[in-house]
């Protein structure tokens, strides 16, 4: 496996695989932090830490599913804010 290439993210709902986007992950984590009313000053650092952890984890894999990333990201985010991690994990499980 060539670890310099970003891994593919498979979406079972659409059956398509897209290249992993760090910017998109950062935006998702930032949104989850805003939802729970986290102070603006610590959101960039929190999001950057979570993204670094996810990119390290992805380095060992060629392809992952969207739910793998969501689960892993919410676990990492929950270390810093349990509420934000919970909201991210349940983003698509409200209705």
């Amino acid at each position, binding site marked *: 496996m060539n670890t310099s290439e970003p891994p593919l993210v498979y979406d079972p709902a659409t059956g398509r695989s897209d290249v992993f986007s760090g910017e998109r992950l950062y935006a998702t984590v930032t949104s989850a932090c805003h939802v729970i009313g986290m102070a603006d000053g610590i959101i960039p650092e929190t999001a950057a830490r979570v993204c670094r952890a996810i990119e390290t984890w992805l380095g060992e894999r060629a392809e992952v599913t969207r739910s793998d990333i969501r689960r892993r990201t919410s676990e990492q985010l929950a270390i810093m804010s349990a509420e934000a991690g919970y909201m991210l994990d349940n983003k*698509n*499980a*409200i*209705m």
Partner: protein
Amino acid sequence: MTTHESFALLVLAAAIHASFQLSVSMLTILSGHALSAKTANTRLLGLSISFASGVASMIALSLALISLLLANIFYSSVPRIVWAAVCGLMVGVGVAIWTYYYRHQSRGTILWLPRGFARYLSERTKKTSTRQESFGLGLVSVIAEYLFCLAPLIVGGLILQNLTPPLQILGLTLYVAIAVLPLVVIIMLLGSGHSLAVIQKWRETNKRFLQFAAGSALVILGGYIYVSMVIAAGSQGNL
């Protein structure tokens, strides 16, 4: 049925209606999306109040329509066979709530809705940016849950039809006020700075209790109405 008894049953029917979760889920998504987009608190409050107003308006319109239809179909009194059919509907809906109101072994608060429709509602909710859209979304959320909320609405309509006009207005207002109470509580909690995560976590923790309570209350209400309006009326010789 005495006035006190009518109001007691109306309150129970409204409480059952209040336990349905589609409008609450949509309000949670609406608030969550607005918060993630860093929407100002006053704007979020406006969107939420418009949504709750839409829900209240549709409940009031539905209840008034059902009551009007029943009053026009059955001029003097509702036949026992209609009460019996409504009791059957309530027991059936109660059992349906026990069985599949929340999806089995699902995380979060995933409802019975077909997934395609739920995704559409969720996307539509996230795109809502004006108060008018939010009001319309509130109207739709009640219609989308007619499958379950028609049972308490029909009971409410039957009860209202037996009251005098001033008491009908009071009863209608009481029903709507109780049915939208969960939305009002959520709006107040969010407005006073509570986290959406705490509200959603509470919903998830208590979803099985709410499901059991709503189903049981419908079955009990159906049983009570069957005894008081079908069996007791039959023993008194009424049709």
